[in-house]
């Protein structure tokens, strides 16, 4: 931190571009939506794609948010985060299968109840896994990114194999609950009900997370800890304990994301977590490692871009997101919302 001599108050004299700058990342999301509208000639398809892009973005956000906070707080990079996604999906789907009577019924309430129970079960299991993972895999390798990457990758391999041991087989196909099947038509566009629910759930989770981070003392500790963990300790807070909580919460959210993703794709595999991690990495990099807002914006951008390009030129879907990452890193090497780090 530099100690510049006193300047005249600088808040009053910002130019328009300076004042716009903090908002630029947020404006990029509507920019992509407009861009998609221009390129896709049918408004109906555009709306369909926008909704599925947002749904995908929300799910990626749910998965990625924990990972970015874990990095921000303790400088820990968890390549095994995808394991929670896969595990969550398998646990959630197993619960849905057991609750077949409820998911098959033509009652929205029963369907949602079954879905909610599946999600809670997935979160409980992956949260507990996260607790164990932090203790066994991550804790011995604090401070060394190299070892973290290696060990968490190893953890991912073992977890994927355990899925095979427990559930066997290669993939499980899963139908959505009865009332979440099918779609509604709006302005001539076909909108799958499930995607709309995914968007809503993702938005609620984002707002809830924001409320916790901005409105509770725990949230303040997390945000302060991302910036300067040492000072948080010197103030009297056990940042380690907070970190474990964030790790567990992040793992549980990844498990939830796994259930959502599994129902979105209607098929789950042991490798699904690893596959999603590719998009998650792009999202946390472009969002700014450690930033929840950046992660949200990045996830929406990636989800939208992925869906628009998949429609326009299917082969380039993943490449387009790589291009997006390259472009953003050229513009802001630390991501769209760089996290201020002390020292």
């Amino acid at each position, binding site marked *: 931190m530099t100690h510049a001599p006193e300047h005249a108050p600088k808040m009053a004299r910002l130019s328009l571009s300076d004042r716009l700058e903090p908002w630029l990342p947020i404006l990029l999301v509507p920019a992509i939506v407009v861009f998609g509208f221009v390129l896709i000639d049918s408004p109906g398809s555009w709306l369909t794609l926008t909704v599925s892009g947002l749904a995908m973005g929300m799910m990626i956000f749910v998965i990625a948010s924990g990972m970015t906070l874990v990095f921000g707080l303790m400088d820990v990079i968890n390549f095994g985060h995808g394991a929670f996604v896969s595990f969550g999906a398998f646990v959630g789907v197993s619960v849905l299968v057991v609750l077949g009577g409820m998911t098959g019924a033509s009652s929205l309430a029963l369907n949602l109840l079954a879905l909610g129970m599946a999600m809670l079960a997935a979160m409980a299991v992956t949260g507990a896994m996260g607790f164990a993972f932090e203790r066994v895999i991550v804790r011995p390798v604090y401070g060394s990114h190299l070892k973290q990457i290696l*060990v968490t990758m190893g953890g991912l391999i073992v977890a994927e194999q355990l899925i*095979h041991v427990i559930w066997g087989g290669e993939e499980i196909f899963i139908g959505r609950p009865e009332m979440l099947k099918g779609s509604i038509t709006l302005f001539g566009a076909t909108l799958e009900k499930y995607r709309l629910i995914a968007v809503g759930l993702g938005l609620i989770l984002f707002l809830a997370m924001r409320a916790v981070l901005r409105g509770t003392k725990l949230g303040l500790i997390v945000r302060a800890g991302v910036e300067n963990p040492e000072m948080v300790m010197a103030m009297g807070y056990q940042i380690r304990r907070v970190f474990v909580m964030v790790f567990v919460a992040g793992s549980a959210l990844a498990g939830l994301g796994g259930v959502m993703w599994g129902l979105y794709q209607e098929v789950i595999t042991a490798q699904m977590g*690893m596959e999603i991690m590719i998009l998650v*990495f792009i999202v946390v990099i472009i969002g700014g490692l450690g930033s929840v807002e950046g992660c949200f914006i990045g996830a929406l951008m990636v989800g939208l871009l992925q869906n628009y390009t998949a429609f326009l030129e299917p082969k380039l879907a*993943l490449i387009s997101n790589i291009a997006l*990452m*390259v472009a953003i890193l050229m513009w802001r090497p630390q991501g769209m919302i760089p996290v201020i780090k002390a020292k």
Partner: protein
Amino acid sequence: MVRLFLSGDDPQSRILAAILLIILFALAFAPFLFPGTRSLETAARICIFIVVVASYDLLLGYAGIVSFAHTMFFGMGAYGVALATRQMGTGYDALILGTLAGTVVSAVFALVIALFSLRVRAIFFAMITLAIASAVAVLVSQLSAITGGEDGMNIRIPRELGPAFRPFDEPVLGINLSGRHVNYYLVFFSCLIMFLLMLRVVNSPFGRVLQAIRENAFRAEAIGYRVVYYRAMATMLSAAMAALAGAVFAIWLRYVGPTTTLGVEIMLDILLIVVIGGMGTMYGAVVGTAVFILAQNYLKDWMGGASDATAFLPLVPDLLDPDRWLMWLGILFILSVYFFPSGIVGRLRGKT
């Protein structure tokens, strides 16, 4: 003389030296010691993967950079040969040109990725390479008009390297030599040269700077080494070596496809071998690869037997299923990182 070839990098352990000699001897005389197609395939695969793993060790063990794009570079060499022979027809010129083209392309690609991601933060490299490598793998399997898609491409190689060619009329040491054996020795010697070359690199001043950076990047920068330059060079060199190995692999297999060169599984195998064999030792690549590939071929049979034998127990047969061997390897891998980061070689040398 031996020291000259090894660039002064002694095995530093009698047992290690003995193991290395056995492996060298076995590979050099593989066609005579272990007749049969499967053994020859295994031997060639070991040769090639020693180079691939060693080139990865150059990056991971010596420069301390984790890349998940190593198979991408490996694949670039292989596809370089395949595309060149398709364009230019069968011939040594196509093989050489394809190899060179694949190598140059992958070195340039590596340089771009390195400059792009290492500039910001070294950990970005791991994430970015993972993303790029999977995007390329997807692209390769989709652009079937150019790459043959999921099916891959068969490669027509000169007759002298094929099974139909008979260099000698009489059996040599009881073996009817064919072009396959010529091809094997092409693989063996090119891999041997590449390995010794890498051994030279890591024991050169350049290699020592890399290790200094790995130990403490800030200090190296403060002393005046341009860290990004050295890391980028290591990335390029490693990618080029992987591409060369890929080209040799393609010539040997006479085929290239996404699963044989670009798959995530191969990437994970490489990572596991380096760590279990011993990061930053080069010899770890030799020992690790030999053990790994032999285990892959023969341990699985044993696991299958053990799984059947324990069929009456709950869960145990599932855990011992041959398809689950990656799980045991993963556990071994994690334990290696914790308890003996310098791997088997480090153990043999008596360091931990």
